[in-house]
């Protein structure tokens, strides 16, 4: 209920400075901004990064619609970005890197672009389970032997988990018309689940302290945790494939789009991407020249997921799971 006279307010577009709303780790943003400024000295001190959760980026962008404060939305799920796009929060454009990007990873109208790919894999505690005994595929997770060994980051409030669970349903019903087999599968998973974790941190703590030893989680974080924080985590690329989520970037309508465009162009710079892949285990959504070792050996097997079907049904499915399946298996 506001914005009567907002058109005249200059807002944040004065000079060239711009604000980035980022759901990326602060280490990543600091690193990237440093490089960006080094390359574009005129932006020294003009790039402001605010770190927050992906959901909060959406909330904030939405709330500020009348007078946008941010220029770049850096880090968000496909669903989140689509929501933003549909609410007319994002600016459509055609960057130079768009051409090399798989159409699945970007918005058709150019309102958002995938930055990194997040394969969702099976995570296990490698102190508790030897690598050879870890489950090999999704269906292994529902085996009775893992009763009370699984910990799941609670689903409804997590974009990642919603995608994984929806993918599990859609896997068994390609057109999404009959979710029942998927529900049954999730019910069995629920039976094996000892606890739902409140947030990623909670998940890591509970995994490391062995309240449960198995989970489904994204590859990047598993690698980061085990390498950086010395967590006892290992991963298994599921035999039937990993749902690959796209995590993207966008330009916020009404912000400083000039600086924002420059920044995004830089974000897809080849060397930068290589560095990010090496140091932060990011899988870029665009092809890059030099892949670090881990990426080259990854053997990523994407699961064939129809995100359109999921987008149509996700709310219903997850609501059903929340009401009828969770803690009832």
């Amino acid at each position, binding site marked *: 209920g506001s914005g009567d006279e907002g058109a005249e307010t200059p807002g944040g577009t004065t000079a060239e400075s711009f604000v980035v709303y980022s759901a990326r780790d602060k280490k990543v943003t600091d690193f990237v901004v440093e490089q960006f400024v080094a390359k574009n000295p005129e932006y020294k001190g003009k790039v402001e990064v605010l770190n927050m959760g992906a959901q909060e980026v959406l909330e904030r962008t939405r709330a500020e619609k009348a*007078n946008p404060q941010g220029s770049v939305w850096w880090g968000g799920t496909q669903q989140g970005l689509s929501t933003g796009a549909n609410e007319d929060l994002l600016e459509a454009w055609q960057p130079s890197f768009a051409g090399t990007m798989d159409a699945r990873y970007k918005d058709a109208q150019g309102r958002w672009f995938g930055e990194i790919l997040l394969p969702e894999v099976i995570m296990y505690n490698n102190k508790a389970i030897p690598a050879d005994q870890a489950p090999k595929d999704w269906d292994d997770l529902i085996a009775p032997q893992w009763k009370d060994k699984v910990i799941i980051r609670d689903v409804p409030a997590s974009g990642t988990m919603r995608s994984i669970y929806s993918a599990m349903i859609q896997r068994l019903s390609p057109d999404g018309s009959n979710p029942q087999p998927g529900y049954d599968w999730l019910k069995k998973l629920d039976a094996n689940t000892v*606890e739902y974790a*409140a947030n990623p941190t909670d998940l890591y703590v509970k995994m490391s302290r062995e309240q449960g030893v198995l989970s489904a989680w994204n590859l990047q974080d598993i690698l980061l945790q085990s390498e950086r924080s010395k967590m006892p985590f290992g991963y298994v690329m599921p035999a039937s494939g990993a749902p690959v989520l796209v995590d993207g970037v966008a330009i916020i309508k009404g912000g400083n789009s000039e600086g924002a465009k420059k920044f995004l162009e830089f974000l897809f710079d080849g060397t930068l991407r290589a560095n990010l892949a090496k140091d932060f285990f990011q899988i870029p959504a665009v092809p890059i020249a030099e892949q670090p070792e881990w990426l080259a050996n990854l053997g990523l097997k994407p699961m064939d997921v129809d995100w359109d079907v999921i987008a149509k049904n996700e709310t219903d499915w*997850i609501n059903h799971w929340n009401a009828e399946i969770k803690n009832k298996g």
Partner: protein
Amino acid sequence: MTAVSSTVPSRRGEWARRLRGGASAAWFPYLLVAPLVLILWGYVVQPMLATFAESVSDDGTANYTQFLTSSGVARTSLITSLVISAASVLLCGVVGVAMAFLLKRFSFAGRRLIEAFILVPAALPPLIGAISFQLLYSEIGILPRGLQQLLGTAQPVLAFDGIAGVLVVHTFTMYPFFYLAASAALAGFDPSIEEAAYNLGAGRIRVWRTVLLPMLTPALVSASLLVFMTSLASYTAPLLFGVDQTMTMQIYINRTNGDLPMASTYAAVLGLVSIAFLLLMRWYEGRRSYLSQSKGVSAQRREIANPIGRWLAPVASVLAALVLLAPVATIALVAFSADGSWTTEVIPSAYTMDNFVTIFSEPRAFEPILNSLKMSVLATAGCVVVGVLIAYAVRRLKFVGRSLLDVGVMIAWALPGTVVAINLISAFSTGNGFSFGQALIGTFWILPLAYFVRFLPLVFRASSASLALIDPSLEEAARNLGASWWRAFLSITVRLMLPGVIVGALLAFVHGVGEFVASVLIYTSSTTPISVAINNRMYSFEIGTAAAYGMLQVVLIFVVMWFSGRLEGGGRAASRGAEQWTN
């Protein structure tokens, strides 16, 4: 009744006379309240109405009918939330009042220190605080695991989970509402009333039940309101303990689902429930008077002979303090333990200073702390000025719409922080009259403003409770001696309210320093508060450094508590209760 009507003078004469009434005139309350109402309307009520409007935007009241159907999530959530809130009020009441009794009625070595510690649980940083509870009491917690090892059982012992876990967290973090309110009231209590009850043969317990507790009603009502509303709007605890059928969880889930009208519906219902509870409490409190009618000022000296009491009190207080400090100790453990060194062990196996080195070696490490300090102090100052005035207006002045004013203030506390922040953004993303035509979004001022709106109820409630125990004839005496209303208000009424005001200000300050959910939506890089800084660490699972940051926050709050304890100690009338219980 037959009103005696005198000759009606001319209209002008009548007005002139009315205007001359000054602070005791009928129009005075409106004059005093008008700016407050404007502030509330602009900053609180209008945005809340927007929420309501949104909740009925899509399909009318259909969203609301969901709360009436017995099977739906909506209704279960509502009931779960209500149960949790009611239980939290009870538990916090018991713990808080008991602590107040121990610490304010007995004096023993170290009492001061414990008093300074006692607010720390309320000051636990979000997320890291909640996690510390998990590390303590949940299935992976130190306590259950320790017991498991001790007793050699297969499963962790006494692990809290679900609603029980939520209640534990609520009790720990919210009992200070009761503790502070009750101790301020106990200190200002007319001791002769208690003596009269003993004299009539009532035993200690009976005196508590029939005289002290009822006389503490304003304080307890104030604390109950705050605890009830906080529990209702509590998010992290249900999240961590996996109780997802609560109102706040549903708000979050619906927002994630993109069902904004439904989320607003939940928020509106939350508000309505809180208002209903508020009105109920107002009615309950209003039934009786709590103002001592004693002549003169009673001697504060009371003496106890009971040696058990003398020994029991310190022992019990120290035990309680240990339990209360356990979460802080847990954070300290994490802060000093090496990353990855603590997995299945009961307590960490390796210790290090690295986490502190990490934060201090950062160039702008202290900035978030200073930011939080600055913004909280600003907001608290605003809360004190406005809160005290509203408390006075609502309690002492007679005017139409007193209850509405009360509700208007409290509503900001009843709603989840996210909702408040989003409302503020909508209200101030462009300039309007309340911001002097400035767009506050993206400026420094939006954060203190948000804190002000959110924490005003804390100061208001605490002040109001202490005002209920102050004899209005003291202010009359001052006016009679020639003091203007302002002077009498400041030098007498506010001075006597001070214990309550300090309590409110402390609560506001502490909550300001810890505020996260609203801050994260409106902060800018130059106003990054400490909570966001901690959260950024948590986000990248640098739990050690996050805990180290958390420790800094705890220390900051502890220092403030210590000094405010001093401050209060200076105000003799207020806190001289305890010393005199021992001869």
